């Protein structure tokens, strides 16, 4: 089919140039990696535990530490390895439970549990958390000791009773409430923010720079030669449009699949993500086609295309998150919505942050579809004029 032949040749020519492979595929992945490392959401702090014994109290302490919310606890063999792991950044902190923990406590001796950490804020927070766990166990032990001293039974009997009371006691609770909306950063995984913002930025940018291929085709006389074959202008237009779209599609799919596999990015509702990406890519392809049909010089178009691509991406929230933009400049936030990027970002945030489905992003999809329809129509009209004049 002629349309497919024209489209396939567009894709083939793009990836024939190795520099394009770098800028189209590797560069976005690298940026997502860098952004994830620099600004990505916090992951659980890693806490190592050295536990040599198998006593009930020691096991109870380990279970209490492992049960702490928001801490990734793991067991280690000895103190030396855990210290080395902290020094190498493999762990934020470590807890070393001394040998004979149970025996010492049951004998009424004081036991020192070692807490080792880097002098960082996150490690300091862990100190408090681990301290509270130790305090909890210590309180039960103190209660058991007190009961034993008052003749309420052996220490073991008193301990069992104290644990039972602690498990059923209502105790104190702190009621939490939040004020204001959380920042996007705080809700996203390490790579999500970079993934969807760079996806939109690079797909649009590639469509802009890819417009030079259309100009080159005209400059080389290949477009005119296509018209000398038994191929209608409409077929050529559709082929060129499909070619632009196919390039965006290939790039976008590789970024989506690549980030999901390599960085564990969750793109949310697949149907919603696919719809957002497709309509955004159609718009980007349409703008690329419009540029390719309007400019006569490929170098000029390439330079201006990069400027437009980066400029619209920056304005649309690919570099400064829209949530922050809205706080600091509501006007700028409103202006950002003249770009398809802003609508794409809001659609992805709905899917990824709030677990929305395609039904929740109908407005964004409608705006992106309208944008795509307008620029595609304009691009096709300009390209027809440039081919047939």
């Amino acid at each position, binding site marked *: 089919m*002629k349309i497919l*032949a*024209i489209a396939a*040749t567009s894709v*083939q*020519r793009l990836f*024939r*140039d190795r520099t394009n492979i770098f800028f189209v595929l590797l560069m976005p992945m690298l940026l997502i990696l860098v952004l994830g490392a620099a600004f990505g959401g916090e992951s659980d702090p890693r806490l190592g535990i050295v536990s040599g014994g198998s006593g009930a109290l020691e096991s109870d302490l380990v279970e209490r530490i492992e049960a702490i919310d928001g801490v990734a606890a793991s067991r280690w063999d000895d103190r030396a390895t855990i210290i080395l792991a902290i020094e190498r950044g493999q762990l934020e902190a470590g807890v070393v439970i001394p040998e004979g923990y149970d025996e010492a406590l049951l004998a009424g001796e004081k036991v020192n549990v070692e807490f080792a950490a880097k002098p960082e804020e996150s490690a300091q927070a862990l100190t408090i958390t681990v301290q509270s766990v130790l305090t909890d166990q210590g309180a039960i032990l103190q209660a058991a000791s007190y009961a034993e001293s008052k003749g309420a039974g052996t220490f073991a009997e008193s301990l069992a009773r104290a644990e039972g009371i602690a498990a059923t006691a209502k105790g104190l609770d702190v009621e939490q409430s939040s004020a204001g909306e959380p920042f996007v950063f705080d809700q996203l995984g390490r790579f999500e923010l970079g993934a969807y913002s760079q996806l939109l930025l690079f797909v649009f940018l590639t469509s802009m720079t890819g417009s030079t291929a259309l100009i080159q085709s005209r400059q*080389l*006389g*290949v477009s*005119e*030669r*296509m*018209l*000398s*074959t*038994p*191929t*209608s202008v409409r077929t050529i237009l559709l082929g060129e449009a499909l070619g632009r779209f196919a390039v965006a599609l290939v790039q976008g799919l590789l970024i989506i699949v690549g980030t999901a596999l390599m960085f564990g990015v969750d793109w949310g509702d697949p149907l919603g993500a696919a719809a957002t990406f497709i309509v955004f890519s159609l718009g980007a392809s349409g703008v690329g086609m419009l540029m390719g049909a309007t400019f006569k010089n490929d170098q000029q178009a390439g330079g201006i295309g990069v400027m437009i691509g980066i400029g619209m991406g920056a304005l649309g929230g690919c570099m400064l998150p829209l949530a922050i933009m809205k706080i600091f400049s509501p006007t700028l936030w409103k202006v950002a919505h003249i770009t398809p990027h802003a609508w794409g970002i809001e659609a992805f945030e709905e899917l990824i942050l709030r677990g929305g489905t395609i039904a929740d992003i109908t407005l964004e999809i409608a705006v992106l579809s309208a944008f795509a329809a307008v620029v595609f129509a304009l691009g096709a009209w300009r390209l027809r004029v440039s081919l*047939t004049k």
Partner: protein
Amino acid sequence: MNGDGLVLECRDLRRAFGDLQAVDGVGFSIAEGETYGLLGPNGAGKTTSISMICGLLERDSGEVVIDGHPLTTKSVAEKRAVGYVPQDIAIYPDLSAKENLNFFARLYGLSGVERKKRVDEVLEIIGLADRANDRSEDFSGGMKRRLNIGIGLLHSPHLLILDEPTVGVDPQSRNAILESVENLSTEGMAVLYTTHYMEEAERLCNRVGIIDHGKIVAEGTRRELIELVGQRDRIRLRATGNIEAAAQATASMPGVYEAAARDDGLDVLVDNAADALTGILGTVAAAGVSVSSVDVDEPNLEAVFLHLTGRALRD
């Protein structure tokens, strides 16, 4: 092809760009197996005429009929009969020869085994089979020209239109291109060949249309054109013996316009040197003259063009 064996008929083609009348009433026809040359200097209207014939350029007036079907800029199926080779090399430089041919073969409607077979055949015809998978940007100018021509041959068109296909080509590649065109014509393909190289038109074309300022000022076979302007072939004989007697005897032969004795031989003006030479040599020998060398000067299309337009082809 229509009932008259004509593959192309174009009548009264006109096209103006602003005040410039680029093509002004051009018309000619080409039959199957015939090579028709449009000979004229740069800017004479050759490419504009071809663009209208191929349906690439809207015409102000006139008509183009290919294989009995009118062809306009809106025609699609009718273009199947035409193979167009533009003056500028129109290929993707970042694709290989084979990839370029495959791409255009698809646009010409070839598919599957037929496309593969035809691409391989054309690679052989243009002598690029051993470089089929090399990027065309690495080719020499001549190789690119050959690939440019090969694309126009992919679908075995009835009419091959070549717009100055040898511009900027080295002599070896040029000769290869001309040989290819000769072979295609022999195989029955109608060829429209534009050039401003007189020797190419003389070598390839059965008929030539001389175009200048958008008009065909004369048309015919090389012989007809030369006769049109009264030019004749000159045979120069270097000879010894009774040259005066030989000149008198030769002058009375049919087809001989003039025979003049010189110190070292004689000059003879004839309609057609090829036809007359054998008879002249016999007459001269009968007059007791010994001939040591023969030179033939045939008037060429350059002289015809100069006569018709008052300027040289490369002006």
